[in-house]
């Protein structure tokens, strides 16, 4: 049985920051990551981040994990990292079971921070199982991590930030983007991203939907149509578009399986991407000693995930009586950073979701 103060599940932006924070506060930390690399989905984010300097603004996502690793070097005697390790279960007696590169292990931590991230949502339409229909994040992984083009002509479905950013990155990789289709009457992502791909000649078709895909053993074309304000296709507006890839970018769902298993109270909050755990302001769930950070707590940008990670790490350590004299100041600063990231019209959805997921 491996014993440690804090286990952090997931080595993405939230988990990395949580590990550092808990270790800085004096806790022994075990960071568990199922892949061979740390960084989660940052490793494919070639764009520069927004936010403030504290969230690595203007640094490309791909460069952030090494920046966090530099900070970890200061506390590395307290941080143990297991990669290629998948958490299998959280049990009532506080034991965590792990498949560590094929070996079954048990861990007893004093605190658990779940930072498992999210998975891509899917869409229902005829022939949606054809090869060539990929998540936008999947295409981003193929291009930016492995250097492989997903195809020649891509139709992007969804004009949120991921759809817009991946469209631009497809262009950077030399792939044609036929169009971006968006069901809403307006573009969901930031205008700066939309402008970039529009300037490159890619049309963004709002109030349009994907009706079906066609092809044998792979996508050969897609049928799109304009929709009215009741989301019904407008007769006569449908047209066939030649493409070999359809990218689905219609949002993410929190990866909450472990939290369900642990018995955390969950609530369906569409603004946060689906079922999310109820949590207090310290990011603790209804199961004492289990904390959350990042997309598993509700879908947001990686910047917010990093701030939440740091907060959860400090809170988990503080609950063990660990910390530093300036803890209260730092806690207030982190909460203010989150407020700033969630400010304005673009944060309205998150703010309304968090009201439903919060508990005293």
């Amino acid at each position, binding site marked *: 049985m491996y014993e440690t103060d804090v286990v952090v599940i997931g080595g993405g932006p939230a988990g990395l920051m949580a590990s550092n924070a808990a270790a800085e506060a004096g806790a022994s930390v075990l960071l568990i990551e199922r892949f061979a690399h740390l960084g989660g989905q940052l490793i494919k984010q070639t764009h520069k981040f927004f936010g403030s300097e504290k969230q690595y603004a203007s640094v490309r996502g791909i460069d952030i994990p090494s920046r966090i690793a530099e900070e970890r070097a200061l506390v590395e005697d307290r941080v143990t990292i297991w990669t290629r390790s998948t958490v299998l279960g959280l049990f009532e007696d506080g034991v965590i079971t792990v498949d560590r590169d094929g070996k079954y292990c048990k861990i007893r931590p004093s605190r658990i921070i779940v930072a498992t991230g999210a998975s891509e949502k899917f869409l229902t339409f005829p022939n949606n199982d054809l090869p060539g229909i990929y998540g936008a994040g999947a295409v981003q992984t193929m291009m930016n991590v*492995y250097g*492989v083009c997903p195809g020649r002509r891509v139709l992007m479905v969804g004009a949120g930030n991921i759809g817009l950013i991946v469209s631009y990155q497809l262009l950077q990789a030399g792939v044609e983007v036929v169009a971006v289709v968006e069901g809403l009457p307006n573009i969901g992502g930031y205008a700066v991203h939309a402008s970039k791909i529009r300037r490159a000649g890619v049309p963004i078709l709002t109030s349009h939907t994907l009706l079906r895909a066609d092809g044998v053993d792979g996508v050969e074309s897609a049928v799109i149509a304009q929709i009215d304000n009741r989301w019904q296709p407008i007769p006569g507006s449908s047209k066939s578009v030649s493409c070999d890839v359809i990218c689905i970018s219609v949002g993410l769902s929190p990866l909450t399986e472990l939290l369900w298993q642990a018995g955390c109270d969950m609530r369906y909050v569409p603004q946060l991407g689906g079922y999310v755990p109820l949590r207090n302001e310290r990011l603790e769930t209804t199961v004492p000693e289990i904390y959350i950070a990042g997309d598993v707590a509700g879908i947001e940008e990686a910047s917010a995930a990093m701030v939440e990670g740091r907060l959860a790490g400090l809170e988990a350590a503080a609950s063990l009586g660990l910390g530093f004299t300036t803890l209260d100041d730092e806690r207030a600063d982190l909460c203010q950073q989150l407020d700033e990231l969630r400010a304005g019209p673009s944060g309205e959805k998150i703010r309304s979701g968090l009201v439903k997921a919060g508990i005293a």
Partner: protein
Amino acid sequence: MDDQRIESHPILQFEKSAVLSFTFDGQPMQGREGDTVASALFANGVQVFGRHFKTKRARGFYCAIGNCSSCLMVVNGKSNVRTCTTYLEEGMVVETQEDRGNLLRKRQVGQALDVSKGASDDV
């Protein structure tokens, strides 16, 4: 091997790593060190990774990060391998999966079932 590889990119540099040989349904192919099985197949222009066990409709990957199970294949005789998160190794035998997977298949290709994994306890 490099049909689908990105040649030039404004931000990223893809170094040509060591070549690894593998087979896909008996056909010799080459990938590169650092590839997953899925990215190596993709670079070779293969996008059908499996077939639905009943309808036989083609299956490819979807999420590429180990969440969705759409990319399951038979690798070195083992069924239900997530090819999007399994790194390519020299001499790998990769096959299209057309059933729900069979634990006994590994024996059929002459390899003993490895039951020791999972049996060990404390670290």
